[in-house]
């Protein structure tokens, strides 16, 4: 039994290693980020494409038509459009690679596409949170989400089997007991104080 659990512990850890690295990077990235209240969003790259809005369609259908025409990654129809301060129809998509904003300039028959590309660290940070809860709009992201979700189960499995393996093989280690007691104490105390 213990031998099999040890095998599964090793296998689960090896399979999920890549996800754990991404999670570790996301945690470090989140820690070193400056205060978001003082952070200015970087200027995005802007380009324009021709688009004439049919005059007989409501906003939602025009928005869907824009998405269908442009076929930008991570965008899909059905997103509720907004009106910006100049009353332009606009849609904002938050993708793993950054923010994309589409603005319909009806008088000019154009769509302005603003792309704010996130850094590689921000990208990994975004991906660490990807799950299958929301149907992901791009298949590579869906495949990553599958792996990420497997790794969530894996970390729970590794945690429980890790404790089991310790108790099954070296239960008498005093320093291990003290370590667990101390770390648990710190977390429980923190929980109680914050709660």
């Amino acid at each position: 039994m213990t031998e099999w659990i040890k095998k599964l512990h090793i296998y689960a850890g090896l399979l999920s290693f890549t996800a754990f690295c991404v999670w570790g990077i996301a945690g470090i990235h989140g820690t070193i980020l400056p205060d978001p209240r003082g952070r200015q969003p970087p200027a995005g790259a802007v380009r324009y494409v021709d688009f004439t809005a049919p005059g007989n369609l409501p906003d939602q259908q025009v928005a869907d038509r824009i998405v269908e025409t442009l076929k930008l990654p991570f965008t899909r129809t059905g997103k509720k459009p907004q009106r910006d301060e100049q009353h332009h129809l606009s849609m904002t998509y938050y993708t793993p690679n950054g923010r994309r904003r589409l603005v319909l300039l009806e008088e000019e028959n154009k769509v302005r596409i603003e792309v704010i590309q996130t850094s590689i660290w921000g990208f990994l940070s975004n991906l660490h949170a990807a799950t299958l809860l929301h149907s992901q709009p791009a298949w590579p992201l869906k495949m990553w989400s599958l792996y990420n979700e497997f790794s969530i189960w894996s970390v729970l499995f590794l945690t429980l089997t890790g404790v089991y393996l310790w108790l099954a093989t070296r239960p008498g280690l005093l320093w291990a007991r003290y370590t667990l007691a101390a770390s648990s104490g710190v977390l429980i105390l923190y929980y109680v104080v914050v709660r």
Partner: protein
Amino acid sequence: MYRLMRNAHLILGLVFVLFLMVYGVSSLRVARRGWFPGQPARTESRVKVDPSVATNGRALGLVLMREHGLRGDLFQVQDTEEGFSLNIWHPGTNYEIRYSRQSGEAVIGTRRQDFVGMLMGLHVTYGLWHDDWLHNLWGVFLLLLSAGLFLLGATGIYLWFKTYEERVIGSVLLGVGLVYGLTFLILTRQLG
């Protein structure tokens, strides 16, 4: 060396075991929202704050923290027709505050999450820039846990590699995880 690595793996695991459970269970809540139907409990209270003290949203927030026991980060401070509104958040609890200059009264709506919601609140707390030092302390825990994940991984890989009978199947699994994970990371990034 093997003994050292084995002990290091164990001690790291035991230091972070509950922290990993916090992140693991809260991640499950994200991934399987329907399994955790709990809704936050909402209560409302009212307190009087002199308009000469509550000159703006931030000043009001500080008064509520200092004199009425609220704690956390101030955000969404906005002017309203009556006065201003703001939120004070700490893991598991969000205070939605509306203040009327005319009546000098602050209405405090308190949303308190259940246990798993509280874990979720801890999960999304990061950084060292918070008003509340407890949030910054969690930021330190997160940094240590993140570094700990790498160390757990590195020591785990060493221990696996020294387990000779698991080398072949382990190499395949490690390779599959790396190739699969990196492939879809790169493809997602390449989509632009």
